[in-house]
């Protein structure tokens, strides 16, 4: 199967106030078309930095990345035509209405006013926001904002959808709605690359996972493979949970990760 995302030895180094920081240190990724790929890691592990490099928002210090077959450094504009992006904390212009925002996004992807209006209607229906489409986003709940952000990331029917912590801060009902929508979007053929701190979410949604810690990958596989690997390595007599896999991979203890990784039940 063709690869939707292919990264080789991705490195991001920058100079911060405290000196040089190497946020990502040689990450290799291979995500197949049509997959839902989960990217896990504690805060500051390099998840968002990796996503920002893959989505052309951040320069790559060294290494290479191809998304939907396009080199993101050599041809960022073509890459942007093929990806959809919904970053941490829904990036929305709250002074606009939901419909205006989606239409604006469609216009930025070269649709005519009529095409943009039709696409907005279709997407607002998909994320169940038709009734509030003409209200200012300022009055939307967190869940509505996330769904609208998703809709705006889908205007151009991207090949690959990047979601950075799409359900952080949502209540369980809103989280479930977002999960349903992601599954529907994936069924239409869109590859999804999502970062999350919620291990239950990764377990439910993702075909394969990678775990990053300290800027390097410390585990990769399907949820079942990762659990089976841990069971074998440690001779466990029970089926380990994904959070146990995570703890083993990152060398953390439950006390140490308190506040960094959360398990949620939607």
């Amino acid at each position, binding site marked *: 199967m063709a690869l939707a995302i292919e990264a080789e030895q991705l490195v991001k180094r920058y100079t911060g106030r405290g000196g040089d920081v190497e946020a990502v240190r040689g990450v290799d990724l291979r995500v197949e078309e049509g997959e839902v790929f989960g990217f896990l890691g504690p805060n500051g592990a390099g998840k968002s930095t990796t996503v920002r490099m893959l989505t052309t928002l951040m320069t790559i210090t060294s290494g290479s990345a191809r998304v939907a077959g396009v080199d993101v450094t050599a041809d960022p504009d073509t890459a942007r035509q093929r990806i959809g*992006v919904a970053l941490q*904390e829904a990036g929305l212009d709250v002074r*606009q209405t939901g419909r205006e925002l989606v239409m604006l996004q469609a216009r*930025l992807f070269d649709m005519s006013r009529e095409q943009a209006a039709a696409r907005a209607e279709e997407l607002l229906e998909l994320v169940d926001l038709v009734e509030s489409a003409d209200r200012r986003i300022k009055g939307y709940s967190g869940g509505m904002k996330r769904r609208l952000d998703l809709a705006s990331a889908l205007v151009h029917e991207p090949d690959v959808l990047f979601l950075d912590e799409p359900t952080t801060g949502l209540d369980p009902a809103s989280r479930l709605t977002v999960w349903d929508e992601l599954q529907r979007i994936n069924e239409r053929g869109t590859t999804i690359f999502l970062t999350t701190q919620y291990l239950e979410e990764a377990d439910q949604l993702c075909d394969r996972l990678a775990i990053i810690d300290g800027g390097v990958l410390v585990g990769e596989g399907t949820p079942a493979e990762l659990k089976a690997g841990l069971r074998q390595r440690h001779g466990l007599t029970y089926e380990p949970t994904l959070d146990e896999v995570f703890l083993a991979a990152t060398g953390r203890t439950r006390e140490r990760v308190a506040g960094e990784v959360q398990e949620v039940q939607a």
Partner: protein
Amino acid sequence: MTKVLVLTQRSVREALRTPEALLPTLFIPLFFLVVNVGQAARIFPSGSTPFLAGQNYAAFQLPSSLLLAASFGSAALYLVEDIEGGYFDKLRAAPVPRTAIIFGRLGAEALKTTAIASTMVLIALPFGITIASGFLGFALLILLTASWAVVFSGFMQLIALKTRSAAATNSAGLIFFPLLFLTPSFVPRPLLTKPMEIAATYNPVTYIMEAMRSIVLQDLDWPVIARGYGVVAILGVVMVSLSVRSIRRYD
């Protein structure tokens, strides 16, 4: 070009939906006009003050107020909001030329300033101010004011992109006060004290103000007007180029 227009429309909508930010850009300059005229008009009676060219002191002060109205740089503050709220990244992740993001906001700033400056002049007309150079002069006056708004917003956007901070961008806006007051804002340049005259001569805003003043007080004085437009053009190219460079390097 379509993307610039789409982003300009969005910025205009944003400004109209924030009247609490828009209205002060009209009322504060009018307030300064009233106060400055109230304090100094009796010192400069129109009949015996040659530099007023037969008009009242309010006509002399009008360009200062127009420049103040064009120097709020609110486009940059909205840009910081976009950066802090994440919408700026949404735009950057779309296939939008970086220049369109800059020009979209500057276009809206020019339109907004055109509306505000026109309103200010229309409000001033019943108080005895006339635009001596006629309708063409009025159009040149408004265009020059709007062009200065683009220059100043370009500068503020540059600060916004560099600092990504609302506080820093706001503070940078205060540079307008030395720029505005180290000019012949109350009397013509030859009547300033020597140090002030030197400062005003080196201040580019002086030439814009003098061009505006000549439009209000005299018939079209093309060399003076051309100098004002020339200064705006040079500063505009510098500020917009730096903003575009900064957004292209934004990481």
